[in-house]
C-alpha cells in the first residue's frame, strides 16, 4: 500500500485549521441578523455545503465525459468519489436548510420548487450508487456509470436555477430575490466576508476529501483485481 503523500497530509491539516477558522467567523465575527436572529448563521455553511454538492456533481460530469473519451479507469474512480462526496454535502445542506426553515417558514419541509428539485437530484445520484452495486464487470460498470452521471447532471442546473425560474419562497441571496421569498436579508461586509470564507474553506475540504476518496477507490480496485485473478 502506498504511503500518504506529504501534500495530502498538509491539505488535511490546512482543511481542519481553516474549518475551525470559518466556524469561528460564523460564531464570533459575523453579526446576528436583525429579524431572524442566530439561525440566520446557518446560511453560511448551508450555502457552502450546497455549493460543494453542486461542484462535486459537476466534477463527476467532467470525469464521466473523460472516461468515455479515454477509457481510463482512473476517471471512473473520480466519478464515484465525487458523487459520494456530493451526496454527503448535499444531504448536510438539505438538513441544515430544514432546520433553518422551521422558525422562519414555520415548517420543517414544504414542496417548494428548490426543495423538490434538490430532493430529486439527491435521489438521482443515490440511484447511481445503487446502479454500480448491481453491475459486476468493472468496465461495464464504469461505462454505464459515466453515461448515467452525464444524463443525471440535468438535475443540477435545474436545481440551481429553480429559485430563479419558478415562483418560490426560498431566498435568493445573490442575484436578487423573488418578492414571494421568505427569509431574505441584505449582507453586511462582515456577513459577506464570512460567506466567502466559508465557500473557499469548503471547496478546499472538498479537494481534500476527493483525494482521500480516490485513493480509497484505487485500493478497492486493487483488491477487486486481485480477487478476480485468484478466482
Amino acid at each position, binding site marked *: 500500500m502506498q504511503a500518504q503523500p506529504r501534500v495530502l497530509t498538509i491539505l488535511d491539516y490546512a482543511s481542519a485549521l481553516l474549518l475551525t477558522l470559518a466556524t469561528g467567523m460564523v460564531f464570533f465575527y459575523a453579526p446576528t441578523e436583525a429579524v*431572524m*436572529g442566530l439561525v440566520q448563521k*446557518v446560511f453560511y455553511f448551508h450555502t457552502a*455545503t450546497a455549493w460543494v454538492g453542486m461542484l462535486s456533481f459537476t466534477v463527476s460530469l467532467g470525469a464521466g465525459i473523460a472516461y468515455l473519451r479515454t477509457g481510463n479507469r482512473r476517471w471512473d474512480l473520480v466519478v464515484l468519489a465525487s458523487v459520494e462526496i456530493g451526496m454527503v454535502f448535499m*444531504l448536510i445542506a438539505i*438538513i441544515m436548510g430544514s432546520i433553518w426553515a422551521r*422558525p422562519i417558514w414555520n415548517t420543517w419541509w414544504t414542496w417548494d420548487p428548490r426543495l423538490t428539485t434538490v430532493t430529486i437530484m439527491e435521489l438521482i445520484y443515490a440511484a447511481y450508487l445503487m446502479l454500480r452495486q448491481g453491475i459486476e464487470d468493472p468496465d461495464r460498470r464504469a461505462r454505464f456509470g459515466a453515461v448515467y452521471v452525464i444524463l443525471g447532471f440535468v438535475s443540477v442546473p435545474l436545481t440551481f436555477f429553480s429559485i430563479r425560474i419558478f415562483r418560490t419562497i426560498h431566498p435568493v441571496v445573490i442575484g436578487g430575490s423573488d418578492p414571494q421569498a421568505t427569509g431574505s436579508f441584505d449582507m453586511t461586509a462582515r456577513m459577506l466576508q464570512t460567506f466567502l470564507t466559508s465557500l473557499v474553506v469548503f471547496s478546499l475540504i472538498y479537494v481534500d476529501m476527493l483525494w482521500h476518496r480516490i485513493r480509497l477507490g484505487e*485500493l*478497492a480496485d486493487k*483488491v477487486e483485481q486481485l480477487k478476480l485473478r485468484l478466482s
Partner: protein
Amino acid sequence: MPANGPADTLNYFVAGYIVIFVIMAIYLVSLALRRRSLTQDLETLEVIDQEKGKPEPGGFKPRLETKDVPVQNGESRV
C-alpha cells in the same frame, strides 16, 4: 417572530451546526473504516497469491510410491 429585536433561534442555530459536524465526522470515520478493511483484505489476498505461486516442497509433481509396484521394462505401473 417578535417585532422588536431578533427572534430567539439559538436552539436551531446550535442544531444546524451539530448536524454538519456529526455528518462530516460519520463520513470521515466511514472512509477510515473502509480503508482499514480494504488494507486487511489486500494483505490476506497477497498472502494467498504468494502461496499459490510458490512451488510445493519437493517440486510441483508429487512423488509416486513405487515400492510395491512391479517395474517392467523400466516403466512403473501405478
